[in-house]
């Protein structure tokens, strides 16, 4: 293991030396702008910094916590002031949008050198290369459609983890009758939409693709969407009264301590659960959210770092070095173990390094889903439609959850109208 690592290190350093030598003594430096100021992600970014420095670079970071809008505000302000940041944590359609209005760095030579096109999951490659050149490096792959179940409650009532939505509803009826809360939830626009992502996807994968990936408004007002909203309304009925103001970690804790039966959330739950001491298989079980069409489902979300074009040759070198570091298997392992996700490189062996059973299952499901052609990107987590549509849709969905006087028919119509309004 150690020698393996030192081989990696020295190849990274070798690359750095070569890069430095061939660009007339440029000292690679970087200032990475990201949102992870605290917690395990911050530690993982600190690790990235250490690796960057070990490879000869000079590391600086700007952590803007709070909401994504704060980091995006800083990004816009910096660009308007003429200082595009060398590295920013952006994702999904934003990469294409920023490419269109700004100048991006070109990472094609690093990509070719290290063979990224071969090892990065296909669904992600197109996101990182909006105009055909590599402008971003993916840090991980999250799976959004996980269902975490409380082993205690399932065992108590002798239930299996439901695999279709009908089974889910039936299980919830039994669980509610026994006096437990069925679904743990914290209401917020993104978490309501995360749940709805899984509902639409599980009920009708074509509807998901048309409505949430392509943004087709006719699909949004169709019967399929009405049925999906009806299912969502049912699910709100399976939640308790305290969903407003509860954080997602509290919902996770509720499920894993046996207060509630199910929790629909992405795989970052695993990282939190590990920190809180919950054990998979003992306290919770992880499965995909119910799908009605049988088969493996995977809704994908990925964090990535985007590189804006720079004048300073030190930054240019720093960008290449950072991109290479991010894509290195060593960083992928460290970062993803900490974050609960899986590497964006499909050639990493997950049985080593501390990945949990759920994470290994995730990778297996990713490959199966890609093979079955059921792999999609997440609308809830900003991987498909531009923010102006997504934001409008999330408003409708979160209002639907909060206000039970809105009928599914009204909601579907509102969804379509909200998107049409943005054009």
């Amino acid at each position, binding site marked *: 293991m150690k020698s393996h690592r030192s081989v990696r290190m020295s190849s990274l350093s070798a690359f750095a030396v070569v890069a430095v030598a061939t660009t007339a003594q440029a000292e690679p430096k970087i200032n990475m702008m990201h949102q992870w100021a605290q917690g395990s992600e911050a530690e993982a970014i600190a690790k990235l910094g250490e690796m960057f420095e070990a490879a000869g670079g000079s590391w600086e970071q700007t952590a803007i916590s709070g909401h994504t*809008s704060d980091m*995006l505000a800083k990004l*816009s302000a910096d660009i308007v002031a003429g200082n595009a940041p060398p590295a920013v944590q952006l994702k999904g359609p934003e990469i294409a949008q920023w490419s269109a209005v700004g100048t991006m760095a070109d990472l094609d030579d690093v990509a070719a050198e290290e063979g990224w096109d071969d090892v990065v999951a296909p669904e992600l490659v197109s996101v990182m290369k909006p105009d055909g050149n590599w402008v971003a490096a993916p840090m991980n792959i999250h799976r959004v459609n996980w269902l975490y179940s409380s082993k205690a409650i399932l065992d108590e009532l002798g239930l299996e983890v439901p695999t279709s939505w009908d089974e889910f509803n039936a299980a919830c009826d039994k669980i509610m009758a026994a006096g437990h809360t069925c679904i743990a939830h914290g*209401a917020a626009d993104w978490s309501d939409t995360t749940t709805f992502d899984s509902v639409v996807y599980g009920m009708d994968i074509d509807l998901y693709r048309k409505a949430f990936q392509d943004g087709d408004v006719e699909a949004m007002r169709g019967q399929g969407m009405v049925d999906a909203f009806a299912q969502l309304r049912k699910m709100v009925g399976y939640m308790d009264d*305290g969903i*407003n103001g509860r954080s997602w970690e*509290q919902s996770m804790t509720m499920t894993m301590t046996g207060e509630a039966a199910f929790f629909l959330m992405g795989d970052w739950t695993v990282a939190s659960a590990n920190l809180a001491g919950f054990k998979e298989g003992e306290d919770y079980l992880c499965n995909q959210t119910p799908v009605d069409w049988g088969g493996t489902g995977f809704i994908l979300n990925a964090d990535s770092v985007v590189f804006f074009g720079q004048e300073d040759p030190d930054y240019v070198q720093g960008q290449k070095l950072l991109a290479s570091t991010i894509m290195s298997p060593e960083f992928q392992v460290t970062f993803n173990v900490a974050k609960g996700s899986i590497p964006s490189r499909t050639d990493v062996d997950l049985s080593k390094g501390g990945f949990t059973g759920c994470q290994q299952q995730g990778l297996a499901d990713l490959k199966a889903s890609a093979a079955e052609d059921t792999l999609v990107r997440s609308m809830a987590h900003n991987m498909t439609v531009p923010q102006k549509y997504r934001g409008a849709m999330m408003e409708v969905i979160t209002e639907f959850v*909060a206000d039970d006087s809105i009928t599914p028919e009204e909601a579907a119509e509102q969804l379509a109208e909200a998107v049409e*309004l*943005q054009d």
Partner: protein
Amino acid sequence: MQPLLGARLSRWTPQLVLVPTLAAAFVYVVVFSVWTLWISVSQSTLLPNMAYGGFGEYAALWQSKRWIVSYQNLFLFGALYVLGSLFVGTLLAILIDQRVRFESVWRTIFLYPLAISFIVTGTVWRWIFHPQTGVERALSDMGWLSANVDWITDRDMALYVVVFTGIWHASGFAMALILAGLRSVDGDLIKAAQIDGASMPRIYRCVVLPTIWPIFVAVTVVLLQFAIKTYDLVVALTQGGPGVATTVPAIVVYDLMFERGQIAQGAAAAVMILAALAIVLVPYVVWTSWRDRKQGAAHG
């Protein structure tokens, strides 16, 4: 020559002294506002783009439920917050004015909330108001199981929680300035009223408070600008929820401009905020100049 130049300059000194501020204010107020106005009818999306784009963004804005709710909230919250803070501030000022002991203690207790940032204010009151962590939890732990302090999760009541928290934060400031005003009222006026046999509340209502109305104006201006700019408080307290029930325009502006990459629509929302301000300020300015002219006519 010298004395003449010196005299000339010194005649203009007042205006000259104002020049840096005027230049800065001109850029900050006028240029920035005009820029925002232009951007609101431009094609800006992720970054400012000066090409003309039409008034479509205003139309889109006014068809968004979230914006309509937030605009209504601006007026509702603004009115309750300003009036509430004035009322509580006046009440506290009058109480302290009663020659109570330990005045500096009371005064500090009511004033300190202003020293706390909006973010912290919102966060802590959220802890207090949330049923699972705050007062309701404490009461039920003590045995009062049916206690219901969950207004923050109620779509209809959540805004009043925001109002309450805002008043907690700012009423000390109102109290401080009003107390200063109360203390500067001419004692002779009050003596005269007492001799006429007026009771204490009557004296306050009819003699003292009307005399210090300029203080009320100053306090109102300060409270009004807090109300218009409210952002951090709501984000920390309710995040605009439940749903969009407590969203305020500043949140929508920020969200549109940066998170959604729709700078033009965000600018349109900002212009509407200024319009709301004008709705309140313009009548006041008109009334003041009408009143001044009347007074001038009376004297002249």
